[in-house]
């Protein structure tokens, strides 16, 4: 299965992945319209410290603690992709408590949000990967 892999050796800390993520999940067709004058809330986040940086997004674990812990059944794994049914989610944050990588965050709409590999938006393949200028984030079969 294709997975997101991050190589911090090549991460520039440019944060473009965050912006492409926020745009891809905005439902809007223009980046300016989607992101102008807002504080973005992307599903992928850059960590940076002392010249080291890397992007962190859902690992889509084979044994997902978030899915097992979800009290509503809103988080499910299908074909290796963990996605959230925000209609069911009540925002209890048990998934935030459970995710060992800190990849689930509150969404602006009250439920939680996480990387769904852009399967639900118009992108088709992960926008962060397409937007990374240095192949620090790859979506590949290994």
């Amino acid at each position: 299965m294709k997975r997101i892999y991050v190589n911090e050796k090549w991460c520039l800390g440019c944060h473009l992945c965050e912006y492409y993520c926020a745009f891809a999940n905005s439902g809007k067709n223009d980046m300016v319209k989607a992101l102008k004058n807002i504080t973005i809330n992307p599903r992928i986040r850059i960590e940076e410290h002392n010249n080291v940086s890397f992007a962190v997004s859902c690992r889509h674990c084979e044994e997902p603690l978030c899915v097992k812990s979800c009290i509503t059944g809103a988080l499910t794994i299908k074909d290796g992709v963990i996605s959230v049914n925000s209609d069911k989610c009540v925002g209890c944050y048990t998934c935030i408590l459970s995710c060992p990588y800190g990849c689930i965050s509150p969404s602006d709409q009250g439920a939680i949000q996480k990387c769904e590999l852009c399967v639900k938006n118009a992108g088709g393949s992960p926008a962060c990967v397409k937007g990374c200028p240095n192949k620090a984030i790859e979506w590949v079969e290994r």
Partner: protein
Amino acid sequence: MNYVIIGNSAAAIGCVEGIRQVDKKGKITIISDEPHHTYSRPLISYLLLGKTDEERMKYRSDSFYEDKNVTAMLGVTVTKIDTDKRCVELEGEKPVKYDRLLVATGSRAFIPPMEGLDTVDKKFTFMKLDDAKALEDAINENSRVLIIGAGLIGLKCAEGINDRVQSIEVVDLADRILPSILDETGSAMVQKHIEDNGIKFTLSDSVAQFDKNTATLKSGKVIEFDVLVIAVGVRPNTQLVAQAGGAVNRGIVTDDRCRTTLKNIYSAGDCTESLDITTGQERILALLPNAYMQGETAGIDMAGGQKLYDKAMPMNAIGFFGLHIITAGSYNGEAAVIQSGNSYKKLVTADDTLIGYIMIGDVARAGIYTALIREKKPLSSIDFDLIKEKPQLMAFSKRERAKTLGGLR
């Protein structure tokens, strides 16, 4: 293989999903005294709050039983486990045979003896969907609600109905709220926040006597109310296993494969005891994630697969009126407290490991802390000062990140 599951909540569903990971064909029967499709019990407060509805409360989709090839006998009560005949006896139905049995009977609300309780007309517990519906029918915008118990259930109930009643007063014998998951600072912080939302507390006190719509407390304080909710605690449903001769302490005794002391009988969820890795003690960890994972472990083992349930610990993610709280583990160790603005954080360490934490307000990425506890990560192997500041993968070594993020094997 013929699997029978008593119960229809998280542990039972976990068991079904566990069995089906290994055995696609075996016959599975779920027997539950509740007549509902599997639903998530912790959601009943959200139901009253209007954040969910009965349809969305379903823990799994409508087609779940069909998809997993499960026979669901709902609204049917199990009266006895017959270990000789390897069957469970039912109320008003023929016994059902099992090769492997899961007891996932959960817990029930505990109602302590209180003088004059029988004079109270509208009194409720708050555990099940039917409890929530009954409470909903009983309240209106003029209701004065008295809740006995300032624990998770009592307070979630309070939040759930706060906008729909005239007033809520919470009484608890303890001197602070949520004592099982918070420290004193945390309790005070959360109490303040809940009070700011209009709920009153009377702590270190308890009801001496009820007389219809009046409760007289031990301190002499008198509270007039229209609706009473009793949320002082729960008791595990251990009777079936106890009667069949299985070991029961406070909860049903299980091992790390979720087996009871009875042959071919497993148990999972709120009715069981499991090993808390943060204290090394067997205790009831009545939490939905634990129930699911116990159930899954049991299911896999029942079907002949391999899985251990050996990473249990107390953990809670809960929120009141927009203030989020995440806690895990135990707090008996060296504490580091970080307080900023409206956020509070306490990390508790012992023997070079994190054993517990409390986060109130900013709970972002709490799971990174949980994982430190779960994996008993030696703190000397990470940059603890960095991770203390906020949960981050930066605190781990490059090599570890290459594994978790980069796919290095």
